[in-house]
């Protein structure tokens, strides 16, 4: 983990933090990122991955660290609506971007996202460790239009490994959520 000092302020109103000046390289950066519609102002060692920033500095531990090298998909989050791997992005590079994690999928009235409900309905996990990454990736897969068939889902979800091998149920869950999203 990084040895960065955390200067965490959590606020709903916009707090002005001067952005890192482009021409003055520094080993620490003050940055402002939006996670699940909330702004967070952080001071981080540049080495901090977005994944570590989410888990260790913001306290959103729903996003999981599997391999930490971009091979397993457990750390998948959405940035500006696109699925990406938070372990291979330095937090400082996510400045000003809109990040969605598993914690941000629940509606304000507490109801689950259709993809979350579909994973429960189809028992699409065993140990659950890969599940947040699977769900965020599945939302990306449907949004991209790659959930047309079971084969297409398997191909476009291949970046998310499940060591419990819940794959058949994951594919079923994605097809259910796809159909519900289309209806909505």
């Amino acid at each position, binding site marked *: 983990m990084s040895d960065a000092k955390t200067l965490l302020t959590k606020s709903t109103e916009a707090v002005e933090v001067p952005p890192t000046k482009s021409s003055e390289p520094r080993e620490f950066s003050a940055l402002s990122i939006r996670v699940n519609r909330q702004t967070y102002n952080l001071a981080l060692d540049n080495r901090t991955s977005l994944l570590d920033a989410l888990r260790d500095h913001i306290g959103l531990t729903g996003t999981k660290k599997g391999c930490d090298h971009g091979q397993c998909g457990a750390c998948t989050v959405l940035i500006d609506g*696109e699925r990406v791997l938070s372990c291979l992005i330095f937090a400082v590079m996510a400045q000003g971007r809109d990040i969605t994690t598993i914690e941000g999928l629940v509606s304000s009235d507490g109801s689950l996202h259709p993809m979350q409900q579909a994973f429960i309905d189809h028992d699409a996990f065993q140990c659950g460790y890969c599940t947040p990454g699977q769900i965020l990736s599945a939302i990306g897969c449907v949004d991209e239009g790659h959930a047309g068939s079971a084969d297409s889902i398997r191909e476009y979800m291949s970046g998310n490994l499940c060591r419990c091998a819940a794959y058949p149920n994951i594919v079923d869950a994605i097809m259910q959520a796809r159909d519900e999203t289309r209806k909505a």
Partner: protein
Amino acid sequence: MHRFNYARPENLSSAIALASKFSGNDDLPTEAGTQFIAGGTNLADYMKLGVARPKYLLDLNGLVEASLRQIKITDRSIRFGALVRMSEVAEREDIKSHCPVVAESLQLAASGQLRNMASLGGNVLQRTRCEYFREISWPCNKRKPGSGCSAINGFNRQHAVLGTSDACIATYHGDFAQALIALDATVDIEGRRGSRALPFAYLHRLPGKTPNVETDLAADEIITAIEVPLGPWSRRSRYLKIRDRQSYAFALASAAVALDMDGNTVRQARIALGGVATVPWRASPAEAVLKDKVLDEATANEAAEAAFEDAKPLAFNRFKIPLGKTTLMRALLETRDMKA
């Protein structure tokens, strides 16, 4: 990971100025104090492993030049800005139909998440996945010149059989580059000394005695665009990739093929091979075999034999020769049968 300073330059000239300021003129881009980052899928990984140790990381995602993010298609070429993401190209219907080998080489690479992140300019510069290169406790001539190659007498199942040297047998694992070299693409480069255009075939260097010299680039140079000429071969083109598993794996063998046909006769064949060579690999001897011939199983086999005539197998990668030949034969025949 080593500590690094971070900056997000606003335009190409300030990025180049910062790189010139913090890197020596003769530094290799991979060893320079300053490194550029775009998608980060390769560099962030190698920084975590201690293989890449930049003191200054220059984030190219803030560059204002719009052309870096554009794709321009004309009758004569497709021009890709270097910051265009892999997924954007793989999804474009016009590229899938005008030049399928380009879209397929990107669609079959990496995973959905990685394709959303990785830039085209960074993709062609990705570094090898040789296990001995990745793990810094092993001797490796590419990572530490003169320390020796651990792969030559090690577990070299995934290593190259073409373009190898006594100093290095690390495979170039990219897919997109095979399409680019087969189609005679060019890269636009900007640096301290101005801009230049380079044939893609000259971008990567054979390992020879200096496997640490991977490309023709200087430390202050940035790839700004990649241009793929279109011709009578573009529509009849495809990328075939053979892996240990069906998706999300590097190629054991792959073939990028584009054919200009007159009936069953080949006017011109363009062939590149992946997963088997140390650099993006144009199989010119195979192309020569097919010129003005009827393409059938016999001539496809002749071409495959020619492509691997100089292959040098080691203890664990001998299988790549028959696998590579079969891959090329299948790619040739499937490309011949395309409706184009």
